[in-house]
């Protein structure tokens, strides 16, 4: 099997012995017929760029308001540095809002959760960049948090942003739009996604796992956030369990697709600059499988993500933003934000 990996096991670490489910499914859909284009407005007419950039502006504004500088200033400046970084694409919030609106929810219901997703995302990136972790001096084209504010402040900024996300959801979500029972599910979903079975697991394996852990790592680190964002949007709008599971698979596929394409773009850049693919920071699909296979995988993931949305025809054109998002993740037809992540 093309994508099967033999994962090394150590006495303390457990690795799944087979390929991760998302890649297995992608392989199976490879030879299946492509999903049909919806009868409604075709993707080419939908202006994803405007939709996205408008949302970015709204989210940025709300995030700015959510983290005002007060005493002690240093921690707020550190938090704002990472959350309000220039050129951030805000993909998780956009997916969340789009998923919420897909099922008839109002974006006002989604904004607090969308902001919370960015806060916890920023928190995990701040910790990821620490010297004892990935040791990254820069992030999104700017100095990483700890290089400016110090390691101690960076640890605390992350520790503050995680709970702020939850608090923001509780304090800002209109309860007339979202009943508390659903809010609890959203909170549980985000907590699960960042925790020991989600992004933390991915990061741990990225640091401590062997070179064959790339599938698991990518799913946990990137698929998880995509999945969480889409699911939260669906939960907020009161989608059914079946619909939520669709969005879960959709979000996971898009999240991983995004990273596979990022890896391909980075590999190409490396090759153009250095003449070879020698750079392999952490786990990369291209490094593990080569460009050709990575391209195949990207196409499989694209098909898979769209297939999940195909069962939602009854929502008409509301599904178009999420549909277009898949093509953007694969093709990067335009640039969003000033710089790449």
């Amino acid at each position, binding site marked *: 099997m093309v994508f099967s990996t033999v994962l090394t096991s150590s006495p303390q670490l457990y690795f799944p012995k087979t390929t991760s489910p998302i890649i297995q499914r992608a392989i199976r859909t490879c030879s299946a017929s492509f999903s049909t284009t919806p009868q409604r407005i075709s993707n080419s007419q939908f202006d994803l760029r405007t939709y996205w950039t408008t949302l970015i502006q709204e989210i940025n504004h709300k995030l700015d308001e959510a983290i005002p500088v007060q005493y002690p200033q*240093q*921690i707020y400046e550190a938090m704002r540095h990472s959350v309000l970084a220039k050129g951030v694409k805000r993909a998780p919030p956009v997916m969340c809002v789009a998923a919420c609106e897909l099922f008839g929810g109002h974006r006002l219901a989604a904004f607090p959760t969308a902001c919370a997703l960015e806060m916890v995302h920023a*928190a995990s990136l701040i*910790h990821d960049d620490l010297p004892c972790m990935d040791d990254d001096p820069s992030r999104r084209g700017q100095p990483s948090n700890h290089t400016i504010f110090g390691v*101690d402040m960076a640890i605390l900024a992350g*520790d503050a942003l995680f709970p702020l996300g939850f608090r923001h959801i509780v304090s800002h979500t209109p309860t007339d739009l979202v009943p508390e029972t659903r809010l*609890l599910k959203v*909170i549980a979903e985000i*907590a699960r996604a960042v925790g020991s079975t989600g992004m933390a697991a991915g990061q741990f394996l990225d640091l401590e796992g062997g070179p064959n852990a790339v599938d698991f790592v990518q799913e946990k680190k990137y698929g998880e956030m995509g999945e969480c964002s889409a699911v939260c949007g669906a939960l907020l709008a009161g989608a059914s369990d079946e619909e939520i599971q669709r969005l879960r698979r959709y979000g996971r596929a898009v999240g991983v697709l995004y990273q596979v394409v990022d890896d391909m773009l980075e590999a190409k850049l490396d090759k153009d600059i250095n003449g070879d693919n020698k750079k392999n920071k952490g786990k990369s699909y291209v490094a593990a499988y080569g460009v050709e296979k990575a391209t195949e995988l990207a196409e499989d993931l694209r098909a898979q993500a769209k297939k999940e949305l195909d069962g939602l025809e009854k929502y008409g054109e509301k599904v178009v933003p999420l549909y277009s998002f898949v093509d953007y993740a694969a093709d990067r037809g335009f640039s969003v934000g000033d710089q790449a992540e």
Partner: protein
Amino acid sequence: MIHTMSLMHDDLPFMDNDDLRRGKPTNHKVFGEDVAVLAGDALLAYAFEHMAVATKGVPSERIVRVIGELAKCIGSEGLVAGQVVDICSEGNADVGLDHLEFIHIHKTAALLEGSVVLGAILGGANDQEVEKLRKFARCIGLLFQVVDDILDVTKSSQELGKTAGKDLLADKTTYPKLIGIDKSREFAAKLNREAQEQLAEFDPEKAAPLIALANYIAYRDH
């Protein structure tokens, strides 16, 4: 879980740099800094997940409210604020009582306050009762730290279960340093009294555990 993760992060080399905690080597000493950071993050997340998912027999509105309350207590307006000010005060000779109190109210008392208030809300307390308990918690939280400062000066590492004499070594501002051991002990007694006053109007039997807790904190020797 939250308490543990805050201690794990607190003990890290770039924070308080502690080798010993609760009588054992600190987390990062055993598992490495990277794992200690991640494990702390994972515990933080799990605490919220657990509250949201496992709380039974309580209306959703109350669970949501306690989640918000806990998040406020441990973030940049609570626990983290105390830690930040603590870090920025190290080596600073001008730290006065107000400053010290800010650190302790936020670093130590915030989580105690959170715990007590969460319990009260979950138990169906009205707003007035919640505020009484909040004040109770602030008193015993501060009390805890005053006693901690006194013990650091008067006890050995083995008795304490954590590294003793650190405060002096790190030139940290403490109550004994600012007002002397005797006045610190007086202040501790005052805080204990104030705390228990908040519980005066409650059923003594039901308030007994909290009263006992206040006394334990005041009279503990490690």
